[in-house]
């Protein structure tokens, strides 16, 4: 059963076709017996950066290849800028794509690589030279026109790949896990640069990644995918704070799962009992659950704190402290927890001294920001 995709603003479903850069409608694609994509519909708005997030095998790369035109759907339609492109081969769609492997033509210089798409469009030489120069300046690689790809570092190659995709002013930019080969520092810097360039140019972008922190930091909207379907579509904040199902809640960010019992539902709010504590949660995910039935409470680590005896919802023994610089991760053995462990984040360096391994502590919820899902 497919969950309805959540929109971020009222009237999202009523977006006019002029605002929609890429539209997929009922797209299915099979490989042998398996459906890599199963009846997927999605709209990417003009100028937005939409991320397809999910574990490997969820269909995100297949979706990207379908939009690019490298694959044809078995069923459904694809439109770019309002025009139906389902039957159109890749070289006639106005797309720019950045591959995971960069795929820079090794037998051409940087300038020839970047200018390739313009040459295919038969632009005059002077115009090509000018636009190549602009594109290289945009990615901060001015002056490297005559180098060969093998003479560049990984980060530089990536910028060339980006310049090559952008210089043709594509209707949609497609990025296939572009930063996975970079080390962490470089990745962070490149993410910021990409976001800036994307916003500056206003190019509609589809970004594929399995790294949820990358998705959260870059996207205007995220489509969380699993097994060929979209599980939830929304802004990063919606995905993080109001996941629509257990999968999304567990996949995006760390989360603790604690068993609880549904006490009562009143309109948009429900109350669940966690031991002696009562917790307010949104009622929507629990629609149809009987009163008294067991449910699972999903709580983010930052929404827990170490509590005094009377306030604690659960108790446990500290199993490990992991120093993270800005905060300390406390891994606590809690019997009731679904995985047997609870993770909470505590700021301040005194945490290391106050709660060493072996200490028995109580844990309470900071505020009513938890979500509960029924067990079924």
């Amino acid at each position, binding site marked *: 059963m497919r969950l309805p995709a959540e929109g971020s603003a009222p009237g999202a479903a009523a977006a006019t076709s002029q605002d929609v850069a890429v539209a997929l409608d009922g797209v299915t694609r099979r490989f042998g017996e398996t459906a890599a994509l199963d009846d997927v519909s999605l709209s990417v708005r003009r100028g937005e950066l939409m991320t397809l997030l999910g574990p490997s095998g969820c269909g995100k790369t297949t979706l990207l290849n379908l939009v690019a035109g490298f694959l044809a759907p078995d069923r459904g339609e694809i439109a770019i800028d309002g025009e139906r492109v389902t039957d159109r*081969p890749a*070289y006639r769609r106005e797309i720019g794509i950045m591959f995971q*492997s960069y*795929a*820079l033509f*090794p037998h051409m210089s940087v300038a020839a690589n970047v200018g*390739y798409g313009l040459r295919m469009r038969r632009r005059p030489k002077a115009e090509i030279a000018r636009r190549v120069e602009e594109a290289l300046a945009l990615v901060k690689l001015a002056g490297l026109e005559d180098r060969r790809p093998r003479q560049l570092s990984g980060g530089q190659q990536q910028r060339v790949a980006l310049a090559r995709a952008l210089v043709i002013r594509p209707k949609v930019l497609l990025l296939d896990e572009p930063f996975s080969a970079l080390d962490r520092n470089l990745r962070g810097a490149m993410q910021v640069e990409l976001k800036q360039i994307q916003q500056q140019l206003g190019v509609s972008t589809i970004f594929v990644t399995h790294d949820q922190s990358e998705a959260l930091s870059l996207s205007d909207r995220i489509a969380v995918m699993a097994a060929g379907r979209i599980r939830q579509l929304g802004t990063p904040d919606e995905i993080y704070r109001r996941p629509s199902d257990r999968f999304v809640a567990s996949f995006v960010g760390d989360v603790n799962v604690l068993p609880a019992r549904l006490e009562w539902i009143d309109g948009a709010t429900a109350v669940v009992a966690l031991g002696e504590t009562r917790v307010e949660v949104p009622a929507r995910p629990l629609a149809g659950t009987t009163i008294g039935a067991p449910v699972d409470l999903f709580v983010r680590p930052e929404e827990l704190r170490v509590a005094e005896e009377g306030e604690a919802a659960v108790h446990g023994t500290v199993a490990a402290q992991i120093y993270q610089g800005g905060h300390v991760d406390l891994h606590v053995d809690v019997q009731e927890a679904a995985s047997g462990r609870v993770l909470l984040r505590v700021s301040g360096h005194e945490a290391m001294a106050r709660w060493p391994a072996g200490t028995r502590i109580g844990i309470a919820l900071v505020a009513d920001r938890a979500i509960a899902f029924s067990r079924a």
Partner: protein
Amino acid sequence: MNQRPFLRIFVTPAALCAVGFVAALLAVMQYSLRAYVPGSLEAGGFTLANFTALMKPLYGRVFLDTVWICFLTAFFTLIVGYPLAYALVHARNAALKSVILVITVTPLFLGEVVRTYSWIVVLGNNGFVNAMLLKAGLIDAPVQLMFTHFGVVTALVHVTLPVMVIMLAAALTHIDRDYVRAAASLGAGPIRAFLTVTLPLSTPGIIAGVTTAFAWTFSAFATPQLIGGGQVNMIANLVYQLGFASFNFPFAASLSVAGLALTFAILALLRAAARPLERLGPH
């Protein structure tokens, strides 16, 4: 710990083979400098007479003819072999790939005599081609295909094709598919993507294939002997005639030496001509 525990054991046998091979080559070179004693298999004293005898235009013509045939063969083998290599690498179906590979490679393993004989049956005056043309009414009398350059080159192309296809396919298979996809995403249709990306990137394979084809064809014997029938002579045929018909081994040796020198010269030339092209390749 001994860094090279088996070095002697591994290398000595190979070294012996190398020595044997070099000794054989030296034997040829040494013989080329000896005098021919007619009626005897022994060679006389040292002399340069064999090499001066080479200067006759007759031998020059055979050398030129050989080079020309090698060039034609290499060229046509490339033209015919490239599409086949491309199909071999890009076929989606594994069974189809195997079929193409087995069909292409089988002639390589049949041996020169069987292959060449088969071409005699195809090209002869009573052969397949003539029989078909006569039946179809396209000709009145059999067309002479045997004993011609055309016949020899055709058979040589057939012989060299497997090697060319293997070398081209090896180069093509190592070209990352993403390059063609990138070209397509930038607006290149299938033909332009091939011409601007795939073809340049396959240059090292083309060079390797052409060079190998040339070297192989240069030493061809059975094909020009049986199909050329004395009218089309390549160096190998001449060496054989001199050696086994006249027993003039010293002269045959000098021909071999000259042929060897020519081979290396041409290969060096090909390498030099190919160097600017190598820059097109992927590295």
